[in-house]
């Protein structure tokens, strides 16, 4: 990797000053992290636990990481049933000063602001078309940019 210090420092920081509801799991491979995200209290997802997988490209953070839900995928209008997430900052809206913790916070707030548990309208179509592909390969039309 080009900026080796970057991920080491992120990991160090997230472990020394943990954020509520965000726990770093397996990081034996520094370029592929597993992070647990807890549904916040007082929201539709309270008491639920989700698992995120981060894959970092060689030129991270200049390029965004690939982030998907694995296992138990939350039912949310911006999360497809295959784990892909429709969130601007993961794609065109990425900036190299964002980080694992800022992404987790964005996702947490995205989940927290939900008023109903539904899948995206085009879920079946999308999942069929992008089978086996990375979410970063797709072209995203954002349903709304408020999150």
């Amino acid at each position, binding site marked *: 990797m080009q900026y080796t*210090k970057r991920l080491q420092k992120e990991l160090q920081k997230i472990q020394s000053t943990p954020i509520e509801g965000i726990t770093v799991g397996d990081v034996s491979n520094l370029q592929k992290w597993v992070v647990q995200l807890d549904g916040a209290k007082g929201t539709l997802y309270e008491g639920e636990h989700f698992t995120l997988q981060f894959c970092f490209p060689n030129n991270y*953070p200049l390029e965004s990481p690939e982030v998907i839900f694995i296992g138990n995928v939350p039912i949310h209008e911006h999360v497809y049933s295959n784990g892909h997430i429709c969130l601007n900052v993961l794609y065109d809206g990425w900036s190299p000063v964002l980080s694992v913790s800022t992404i987790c916070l964005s996702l947490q707030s995205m989940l927290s602001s939900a008023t109903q548990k539904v899948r995206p309208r085009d879920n079946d179509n999308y999942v069929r078309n992008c089978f086996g592909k990375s979410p970063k390969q797709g072209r995203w039309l954002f349903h709304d940019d408020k999150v």
Partner: protein
Amino acid sequence: MDSGRAAKHLKDKGNRCYAEHKYKDAIRLYTQAIEHDPDCDILYSNRAISYFKIDEYKESENDSRRAIQIDSKSVKGHYYLAQSLEKQCKLDEADNSYYKALVLSKEKSVREDLFLSIQESLFGLRRKKSQRDVDLQLKVVKDVKKYTMKMMDRCEELDPTIEIEEHSLKRYQLNSFFEQKEQQHAQSEAPDYLCCKITFDIMRDPWITPSGVTYEKKAIKEHLEFHSFDPVTREPCKLADIRPNLLAKEMIEDYLKKNPNLF
């Protein structure tokens, strides 16, 4: 043969011996050459490095100094002087000489590999120095802590009127004070404000955008090759808009001087 040509002939022979690792022969030939031409700095610096190779550091130091006397801008003179001083454990003097050699080699644009090895030696020395300083300070802190705790025990034994509660509070406070000191000395991370928001590492070449945010030049350049916004503020920003941040550079150099373990 005139003495200039004789000296050159002997020097070339000496250089061949040096290349073949026959350092004692090289020293003999350089000595003969010096008899013919006593004012040539290169002869002294060549003999200095030969002495260095056979662990004669004092001789090496003397020859380096002679080379510098003849040509105060001799890169190799300062470099070899620094190396021999380092071997003699005169670390602060060695630091000075490495630094002079580095500055001169920039001025005179010497071969890149020479420049890099001087730089690497300087950084290596600074790491060594800072480790030495940290170890020393840590030892003092630990000694004082042990002594203070012992004295507090003694007081408790000798003076039955002592307020136990207050005494143990003070003991606790002192303990955490010492612990804090110990941690400070073991500190190994640069402060966030001297780190690039992209690389998270201490900046070597800080450049500033029109929004006023400073980044490592390499990282912000690479970002701006594909995007036209400032990563932090998201305001428009093009490659041609960024400038070196000289204040940040001075601050970082100053910080690294005080914390050379971060080199």
